């Protein structure tokens, strides 16, 4: 058992290192140009946002429409700090401060609202994100509707990869622990979970706070890579976009969120050449896919070696049948 765990860990580490190295090589050799780098960054940020929202909505079953609010807290905190301390250290400090602040707001908002169920919670979180947006719109330090401009870009592939892979690994680890199972049991049946000793409020708030923390990180990375932030970037539409990735990939599937973040980014980038039709085609594709796979691309399953084996044996059987 110990050996098994060890080899699994090794496999993961090798996979992560290889991914990092390959992309780094492509950047150095110029195959990944600045345009592709923009898409890659968007993908990474969306992965963090989707996986962290999946923890709240997909795994713990709490419908949140306010994820962009937490993202904006990270974005503003990080920008405000890096504007005053324009170094990489300033950026990392800003990023951590942003994530912690988002987590704190998550706790303050979560404690009273997570007692609400379903639609009511969705509306409450929506309201929270709106309030955060209006606060940023009216503060001096955030420069109101005009927003903030960050002269320096601290986020490079190294930081992007570190925080994206870190988020994915930590949240999957959490899900595979007893604490994670406690969250999942609330999604499955809250009354039964309480009856076997799970403090449902505690675990809802834990998931919410963790989700907010990572959304804060995503916001910081966004602000530091794309230079410019304003309150309108983090409105209702942004929250919905994150939710779309989660639902599209499958509620309760981390690999689903990752695949969906990549696919949707590729689709919308490839549609950029026809701006008139972009949103129409994007929406039509979403509707079509959701009609055929209402449970999302992955359902609640994870991409794994055994799943590959199942698929390949299915394909083999099909081919055999045809022959």
């Amino acid at each position, binding site marked *: 058992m110990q050996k098994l765990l060890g080899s699994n860990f090794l496999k993961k580490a090798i996979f992560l290192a290889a991914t990092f190295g390959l992309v780094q090589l492509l950047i150095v050799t110029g195959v990944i140009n600045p345009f592709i780098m923009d898409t890659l960054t968007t993908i990474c940020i969306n992965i963090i946002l989707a996986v962290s929202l999946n923890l709240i909505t997909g795994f713990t079953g709490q419908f949140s429409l306010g994820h962009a609010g937490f993202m904006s807290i990270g974005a503003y905190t990080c920008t405000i700090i890096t504007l005053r301390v324009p170094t990489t250290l300033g950026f990392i400090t800003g990023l951590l401060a942003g994530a912690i602040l988002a987590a704190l707001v998550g706790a303050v908002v979560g404690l009273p609202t997570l007692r609400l169920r379903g639609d009511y919670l969705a509306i409450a979180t929506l309201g929270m994100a709106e309030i955060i947006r209006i606060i940023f719109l009216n503060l001096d330090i955030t420069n109101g509707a005009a927003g903030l401009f960050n002269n320096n870009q601290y986020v490079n592939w190294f930081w992007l990869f570190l925080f994206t892979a870190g988020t994915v690994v930590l949240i999957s680890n959490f899900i595979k*622990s*007893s604490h994670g*199972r406690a969250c999942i049991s609330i999604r499955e049946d809250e*009354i039964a979970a309480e*009856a*076997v000793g799970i403090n449902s409020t505690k675990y809802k708030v834990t998931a919410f706070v963790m989700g907010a923390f990572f959304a804060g990180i995503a916001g910081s990375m966004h602000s530091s890579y794309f230079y410019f932030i304003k309150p309108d970037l983090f409105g209702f539409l942004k929250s919905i976009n994150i939710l779309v990735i989660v639902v599209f990939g499958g509620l309760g599937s981390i690999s689903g969120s990752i695949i969906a973040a990549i696919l949707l980014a590729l689709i919308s980038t490839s549609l950029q050449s026809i701006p008139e039709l972009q949103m129409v085609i994007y929406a039509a594709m979403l509707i079509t896919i959701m009609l055929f796979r209402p449970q999302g691309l992955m359902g609640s399953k994870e991409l794994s070696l055994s799943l590959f084996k199942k698929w390949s044996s299915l394909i083999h059987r099909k081919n055999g049948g045809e022959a």
Partner: protein
Amino acid sequence: MPILKVNKLTKAFGGLMAVSNVNLELNQGELVGLIGPNGAGKTTVFNLLTGIYVPTSGTITLFQDNNQTQLQCLKPYTICKAGVARTFQNIRLFKDLTVLDNVRIAMHKNLDYGLFASLFHTKAYSEEENQLIEKSLELLKILKLHHKKDELARNLPYGEQRHLEIVRALAANPSLLLLDEPAAGMNPAETANLTEMIGWIRKNFNLTILLIEHDMSLVMKICERIYVLDYGMVIAEGTPSEIKANKRVIEAYLGEEVNHA
């Protein structure tokens, strides 16, 4: 020695008195039945005992190693931590999780490792996770479910789902176990098997059991004492033979069955 004392427990839903002025007393190690016609208020009593409903009035006291806990103002999860576990009349398993997960989740309340260990999968994490699996399989073996540990709960046949709910309740390590119609939907052979199993579990886990059941063969066979509920009130209390002979009970409850037969 009493383990549970219920005093003048009352629950009103609007104008309906689902439970009114119920007094119950369970002694350490007893197996007690709670019977009554449909809608008598039995499940409501369980929901009050486990904190799913807050009583309109009355007290519930749990006695354990010289300390006593008032349950009527506690949340369900604290009541479970205090040592009361239950099953549900309409099975409430975690349907999309595996059999093993269903059991492991009930052991979470006694978990030692914290958030840090769960995020970084430290040594404490893997050691305790292995223990959890081992303990869960041990419990599953009792009801012969261990070879189905990786199946989704929803895919188990009905009888095994009821069994799994009992295992899950046991995993919470209770001193008082509440079973809400454990034999519902089972055939006579399955019921006989279950009857034996309940007796065995009580002995080996050192439990006190309160049991709601419509199947009289089961109730009369294993219960030492029986409370009869009708229209939310306790109308009789006594040993199985006393209850069988009680006129009010026959009128209110057994009479129905006699007429049906």
